[in-house]
């Protein structure tokens, strides 16, 4: 089976890769590029563990084909911190103990980041609906919602 030659920007770096037509972006990130920060929880777009930001929009990497991302801009959890300085959302997830096993965390972080870019001052209900496509089985979501609200407040304060 012939492969596609793709060039995309991942976390600001230009990355070339080849992939089969049936490989998802998730397969490419994890299996081809060994960028395993993006997690595979279901492969059917139901759990959100593979949420990445594609051209500014949060998407499930398991529902996008690798061959579709030629020329695209992709942000994954590995690119979230600026060097060794954690993103406010990463900081707040640690401060609020918003993770236990951590398998869903990269997806939540990306989804929350995209949510706050669109809506910097969300209500609790808006956060809950914004994150409703991401499953967490450990936390009951309480501490995740608090961490996102707190990060939003801090990001607003830093901008003003």
């Amino acid at each position, binding site marked *: 089976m012939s492969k596609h030659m793709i060039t995309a920007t991942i976390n600001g770096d230009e990355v070339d890769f080849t992939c089969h037509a049936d490989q998802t972006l998730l397969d490419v990130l994890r299996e081809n590029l*060994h*960028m*395993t920060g993006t997690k595979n929880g279901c492969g059917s777009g139901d759990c959100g563990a593979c949420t990445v930001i594609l051209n500014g929009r949060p998407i499930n990497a398991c529902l996008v084909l690798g061959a579709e991302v030629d020329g695209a801009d992709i942000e994954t*959890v590995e690119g979230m911190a600026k060097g060794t300085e954690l993103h406010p959302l*990463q900081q707040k997830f640690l401060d609020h103990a918003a993770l236990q*096993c951590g398998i869903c*965390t990269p997806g939540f*972080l990306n989804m929350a980041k995209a949510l706050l870019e669109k809506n910097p001052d969300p209500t*609790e209900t808006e956060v809950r609906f914004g994150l*409703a496509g991401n499953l967490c089985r450990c936390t009951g979501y309480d501490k995740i919602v608090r961490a996102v609200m707190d990060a939003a407040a801090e990001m607003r304060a830093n901008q003003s």
Partner: protein
Amino acid sequence: MSDTTDNAKTNFKWVGKRTRRPDGPDKVTGRARYGDDMFMPGMLHGKTLRSPHAHAKILSIDTSKAEALKGVKAVVTHKDIPDHPLSKPPYGPAIADLHDISRNVMAREKVLYDGHAVAAVAATSERIARQALKLIEVEYEVLPHVLDPLEAAQPDAPVLHDHQFTLGVEPAPEKPSNVFRVVSTGRGDVDKGFAEADIIVEREFRTQPVHQGYIEPQALIASASEDGAVELWTTTQGHFVIRAFCAKLLKMDTATIRVTASEIGGGFGGKNNVYSEPVAIRLSQKTGRPVRMVMTREEVFRATGPASGTYSKVRMGAKKDGTLVAAEGVIYNQAGAFKGSPVLRSVDSFFSSYTVENVKTTAYDVCVNRPKVAAYRAPGAPMATLGAEMAINELADKLGMDPIDLRMKNAVQDGGQSVAGVKYGRIGLQEVLERAKNSDHYKSALGPNQGRGFALGYWMHGGGLSSVVANLLDDGTVAIATGNPDIGGSRSSMRAMAAEELGVELETIKPIVADTGSMGYSHLTAGSRTTFATGLAVINSVQEIIEKLRALAAKKWEIPVEDVTWEAGQAVTQRDGFEAMSLKQLAGMATKMGGPIAGHSEINAGGAGAAFCAQICDVEVDPETGFVAPKRHTIFLDAGRAISPDYVEGQMQGGAVQGIGWALNEEYIYDDKGRLLNTGFLDYRMPVASDLPMIDTVIIEVPNPNHPYGVRGVGEPPLVPAPAAVANAVENAIGVRATSLPLSPPKVLDMIESARPAVAAE
């Protein structure tokens, strides 16, 4: 809202403090490596062929076409897995029969459930492995199947195992049965008790099996070398247990297998067992190459363990003043394809919060054509608790008593015992009930279409085998290695306890989870045992270091060791002329004055003690659709001592929300051929953020006298009363009795409509 009570000493430096978890940064940056985040050079990809039938004889398996496919390196079937004889009684709470396990990892004579493994291939790519599965030809003779535990227990039901004759019944049966064993326990005389009762309540319930729902599917890499050594990387709650199962199952020497536990993406009891591990080892042995096997979500649902679905019957009798005089509970637990549902836990779970004089509980362990059940957070308890806690609420209603008052009147006291006769020491039940009764939540008003449910849960924690190695390094830092995968923040708690003992800064302690080749045996991270049992081993290990440091200081000072004490991270003496020496100073001296310093501890920890958890749940029911929305939920838990309150709260919130899912949404849907239809998270509906309110927690600390810091364990109790609290709330909202879970919208709508006056139908 988060609230904690502390009724014991409070002068801790690290115990009970909210600190960032040591594994946190790696988990928020994507650096943490889970089961399928590992790659090895030359690695092959393994895939499993699974049964499309619920129950069928395997007539033949032809793998020749698959083996001929380019890129396929090996195929295995049951012929590659050694057979084992049936184990013999007596049986404890957990049954690990190699006869059954060998057949669960690879079907032998029959397939026993949709999804049962039949063959596996290793190929150079996952794509080729999947193609190869399609080329394996299996000839089946389909047999009648049975899914329901009550039906499966009937004499005319299709029988899964011809060798299984029910244990625990008189006379001994002559015909094989799906009922593996019937266990009973209790005290007093229930007939006499019910005869004395002024009021009797009788209820029946059915619950669905529910999956643990960990977000990370099972994933591993096995690598066998030519000299017989095997390296295994896997996501598990107990890599020592995985090593033992693989070695026994494959008839290998235990020490030849070295297992490393990956970071674990959730387990909840579901990652205590082997599934693909022995198969991957065989594939690697056959090919001489590492073999990676990752389950799809569909495979996780079809082939890994749910908690038992159940049928149960509960009868409770009380005097007019609310004194409970008799209680009887019967439960049929689905075991899945092989024996071993948590019947001993079920019989102990029904009424163990109460001092009822006459009590009898019975549980049936019933094989059905579903995946073999696995532990799930307080295995066996939530389903038995559901019946008991809904019946006692109905009693309260009929007696005109407040449900918490009725429980307080009958609550078991310090020194009491459970239904099965497990003796309690100091327990926090009274405190839990008082805090719930006096809470703002309990006193608050309800809105229209809302209902409130209260339920109480009991759980006896585990102790058991734990090993720890603590190494003092020459710069004064301490590496703490445990054998327990960190599933809920245990590294944080181990670090806090070690720093507390040593009297040093938190950052001085570096906790890790070590592989099976590095240290002594540790049992599973399960049974809420790790902070208690492994924590004790951490304390022992650090104490050994302290003893060695005292001796070192005595040597340096040339005084008797008895004159040296360890205080706030320093060796000190009352003798004149000696300045205290810090951990760091002593660590630097050690290598020049006798050698490296380490401590280790290998224990069998007893005395974990009982915990009680109460929950108040408010729901709002949409009378048009039957949709139930949880509006407020508060958990009251006696944690003994919360070493890391953040992670204790996390356990409480996560456990309660699993219970909410159990009560409202989660269920398995099979077609008439016994094939599972809802094999994904879209149709197996676990709670999402928009389904829920904040989950309030009240940590009550009645220290366990058998642990230096009073730890009891916290992982499991928060799930025990949760389904009952939610179901009681739904009943309270709509005024109709619930008889089965989940209380999904169509069912609740039927319940509402059944209660509407008949006039409406005319």
